[in-house]
């Protein structure tokens, strides 16, 4: 085939493809940086975004894989994430970070932050941080799988980080986590129908670190009860729902927000307020002693 013959075939083919090619829409999961050069001991942040490309996405899952020989994971930040509820909050295990979560109502935009990771370079070398097993589902009421593409991040570690160089990832967070209203619920499908508590709040600056809770039938004396670490949902100890329930949200900067759920069936003071009965009995004893002494003195004199 001559050159002119080839071009006679190729040009119409290109024109045909240009005019009749069907655009392929796919959600893209990508890192903020495609390549970067870093120093040993340097801290650096990798941000994972989603570009939904004209589709509304309401559920995402996947995993991030990184070389543990080269990188040490310092922190995962999800405070400003578009994910409203995590099914699996991003957590690292054996060089993998699994995550899954939902965005009720769907998300459609070019740069939706999923979460970010702070790494520290351990030793010199080259490697990549990879996105694997990604699944993004359409907000169509059927959970239809969207086409997805991924872009990994390459890095090269060389040379030593100067000791004087400050850590650049400190974000000042003086705000408490946002207000929230824990809800008491029960359902035969879980916890054998026992009452449980659900709660969730946000902290846009540093993200929620953990929750603590305590139950107390005495609102005033609850200060003597110790906080217990909890996750939503958790089964209530007081299945009679007579206790005040306190839930504390603590962000990664240590700021706290406490939400209180009032007892659904508050106790009558004379039923379980033991301290009142102690005072009553003591008062009666003192009165009886006094009367007895007084009468005895009168009889004697």
């Amino acid at each position, binding site marked *: 085939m001559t050159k002119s013959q080839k071009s006679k075939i190729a040009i119409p083919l290109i024109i045909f493809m240009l005019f009749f090619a069907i655009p392929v829409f796919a959600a893209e999961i990508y890192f903020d940086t495609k390549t970067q050069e870093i120093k040993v001991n340097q801290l650096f942040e990798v941000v994972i975004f989603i570009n939904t490309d004209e589709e*509304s996405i309401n559920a995402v899952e996947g995993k991030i894989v990184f070389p543990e020989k080269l990188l040490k994971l310092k922190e995962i930040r999800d405070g400003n994430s578009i994910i*409203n*509820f995590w099914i699996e909050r991003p957590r690292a295990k054996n060089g993998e970070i699994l995550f899954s979560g*939902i965005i009720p109502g769907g998300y459609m935009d070019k740069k939706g932050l999923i979460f970010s990771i702070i790494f520290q370079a351990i030793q010199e070398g080259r490697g990549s941080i990879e996105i694997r097993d990604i699944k993004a589902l359409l907000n169509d009421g059927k*959970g239809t799988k969207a086409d997805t593409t991924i872009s990994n991040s390459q890095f090269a570690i060389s040379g030593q980080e100067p000791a004087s160089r400050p850590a650049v990832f400190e974000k000042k967070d003086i705000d408490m986590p946002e207000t929230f209203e824990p809800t008491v619920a029960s359902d035969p499908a879980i916890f054998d129908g026992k009452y449980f508590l659900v709660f969730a709040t*946000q*902290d846009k600056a540093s993200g929620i670190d953990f929750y603590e809770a305590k139950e107390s039938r005495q609102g005033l004396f609850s200060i003597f009860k110790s906080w217990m670490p909890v996750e939503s949902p958790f089964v209530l100890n007081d299945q009679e729902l007579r206790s005040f329930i306190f839930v504390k949200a603590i962000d990664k900067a240590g700021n706290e927000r406490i939400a209180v759920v009032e007892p659904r069936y508050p106790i009558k*003071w004379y039923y379980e307020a033991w301290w009142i009965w102690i005072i009553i009995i003591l*008062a009666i004893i003192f009165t009886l002693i006094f009367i007895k002494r007084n009468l005895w003195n009168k009889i004697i004199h």
Partner: protein
Amino acid sequence: MNTKRILLVCIGFILVFFSALKASADSVNITASVNSVCGNGILENGEQCDGTAFGGASCVSQGFSGGTLSCAASCTFNTSQCTSAPPPSGGGGGGGGGGYVAPVTSAIFNGRAYPKSTVTLLKDAQIAATTIAGADANFQISVSGLSGGNYIFSVYSEDSKGNRSSLLTFPVSVTSGATTKVSGIFIAPTITVDKSEVKRGDDIAIFGQSVPNSEITISVNSDEEFFNKIKADAGGVYLYNFDTSPLEIAQHFTKSKTALNGEISSFSKTISFAVGTKNVAKVTQEFLKGDLNNDGRVNLVDFSIVAYWYKRPSPPASADLNGDGKTDLVDFSIMAFYWTG
């Protein structure tokens, strides 16, 4: 003399103690009297509010200068969206100075729903505020107590028949210390049909509510898509009798959208109906998919129940929304679509 003093102290102690007990008992009585049904939308004894029933209360009556009073799940006033007038600046002859007032981070949402309908605003998928739209279907909702950062806000409305619109979701980047305004929100019309199955050649009534006097475009999806236009009445209600003669005997779908003064809403929910050989009236009380505990809402409680069964063997049918025998991301996606907060 000494014994009398002791007697007086004892009597005084007992009197003070029992008066304290009485006060304690009085305060308990307030909460104990809450025997009403919270969440039924009716204001009853012991409730400050219930749903949209506020008993005439407003932010102003609660001591604020303005804003939106909302009702917490516990049927108590939520004044977090109420605003106070800025305090007078300090200074002046006597030397009293004004203190530093931390800037409020808030957001205001304006848009169109349906006349006198309840509009619900979700902040990161949880109910942040509700309001009632005006007779012209316009509404405004404000939320304060926000932080600087990215939020996912969603709005939906409920028409006069109790039908909910689809959830309109939009990401908003809120600036710390500033008020972010979001306007031009156009909630999609509600839509329903009068038959779940219609005899081919008979009419099926497609109806719902939107903005008064707006133009409604109704789409009936088949192999061929049919578009029909109709005008909503002064109450925002629309009704279109669709002739099913051109439709095949099969399952079909319909949806609608609204246009007014050059603004166009997104499409409504998609409603399905069958074209067959007989007419079957549609059941008015529809099951809300994803509402596992049957409280009429799809929210964090339902999410928690499904999350409990995530990747566990043999989930109950309620936690397996697509009936494939497992609870996975697809079930969560279905739930997220039907979310109400």
